[in-house]
């Protein structure tokens, strides 16, 4: 009798809620739900990508000029960090599929740390831009832009720098909105990873019940997907 009770609490004996015929049906249905949510995320970011395309079409020289003040090195580092975190996230899901509790926890922890590293780099980038005045709207500092631009590209003719300085806030508006919304998603993703990490440590998952790890993984990969477009569009071609 007591072994029967214990077996019920063992994760391998996971029973789905009664309205699902099987654990697999539950996982599949949850995944469809997650993909529908991810589709709305794609459309949310599409609005900002469209704003980027529209402003870039209208003011191509300003985008080309203003993007040069983004730090390509930090952008490339963050790209590598996110791509690596996507790998570790995929490996965490794989470990969960196989019921490898320790590996699941390990890979989730590495993924979380990558997210933290990404936000650390973003903090360095943001604080420099805010300090210099490369921000959107009324806090934009034309003189700050001019100084920063001449420091990096001293050969540029003054008339050219002046023309860029008048419009660069448009680029930084798009930059801060896009990377800001993306950064918010990284933070939410880190929260979600933390949640499945704690559950994985407690031994909640098994080869029959691991879909929460998979769904968090899908979210994290989407965050990576968005960055895959943001990095070249903002840092490389501007």
């Amino acid at each position, binding site marked *: 009798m007591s072994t029967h009770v214990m077996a019920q609490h063992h994760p391998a004996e996971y029973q789905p809620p009664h309205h699902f015929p*099987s*654990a*697999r049906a539950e996982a*599949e249905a949850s*995944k*469809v739900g997650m*993909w*529908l949510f*991810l*589709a*709305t995320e*794609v*459309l949310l970011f*599409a*609005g900002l*990508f*469209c704003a980027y*395309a*529209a402003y*870039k*079409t*209208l003011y191509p020289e300003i985008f080309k000029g203003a993007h040069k003040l983004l730090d*390509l090195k930090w952008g*490339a580092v963050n*790209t*590598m960090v996110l*791509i*690596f975190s*996507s*790998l570790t*996230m*995929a*490996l965490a899901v*794989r470990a969960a*599929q*196989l019921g490898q509790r320790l590996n699941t926890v390990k890979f989730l922890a590495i993924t979380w740390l990558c997210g933290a590293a990404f936000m650390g780099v973003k903090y360095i980038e943001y604080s420099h831009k805010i300090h210099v005045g490369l921000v959107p709207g009324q806090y934009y500092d034309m003189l700050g832009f001019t100084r920063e631009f001449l420091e990096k590209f001293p050969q540029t003719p003054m008339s050219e720098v002046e023309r860029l300085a008048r419009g660069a806030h448009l680029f930084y508006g798009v930059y801060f909105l896009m990377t800001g919304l993306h950064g918010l998603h990284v933070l939410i993703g880190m929260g979600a990873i933390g949640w499945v990490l704690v559950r994985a440590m407690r031994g909640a998952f098994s*080869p*029959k019940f*691991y879909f929460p790890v998979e769904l968090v*993984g*899908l979210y994290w*990969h989407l965050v*990576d*997907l968005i960055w*895959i*477009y943001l*990095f*070249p*569009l903002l840092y*490389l*071609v501007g």
Partner: protein
Amino acid sequence: MTSMMAPSHKHGHDEPHVLPVSVYVAVWAALVVLTGITVYVAHFDFGSWNTIIAVLVATTKASLVSLYFMHLRYDNKFNLLILLGSLMLVAIFFYPTLTDLTTRGLIEPIRDLILPNR
């Protein structure tokens, strides 16, 4: 690369579909190489092709992530349909917006002809 072919469908229906680690590492390596390519290519000026090349490379990377890391290649195809559906909506969003922006200049001479005293 033979491991890419390894994922089999002979599991029972309730077993998770597990890909070998080598597939994930290969996809990661491809992503790193493609990132290197997009950074390298950005050193040259191809005019209006700059953005197109950047988006093409990014889309290749995005396809790798969604097909392998997100399992779309092995999943129920309905999930792939949802993603492609959202991308179709994105295209509907972009196309008229950009057509409008890039052709407004064309209409002005015609408008001045029809409404000279505007």
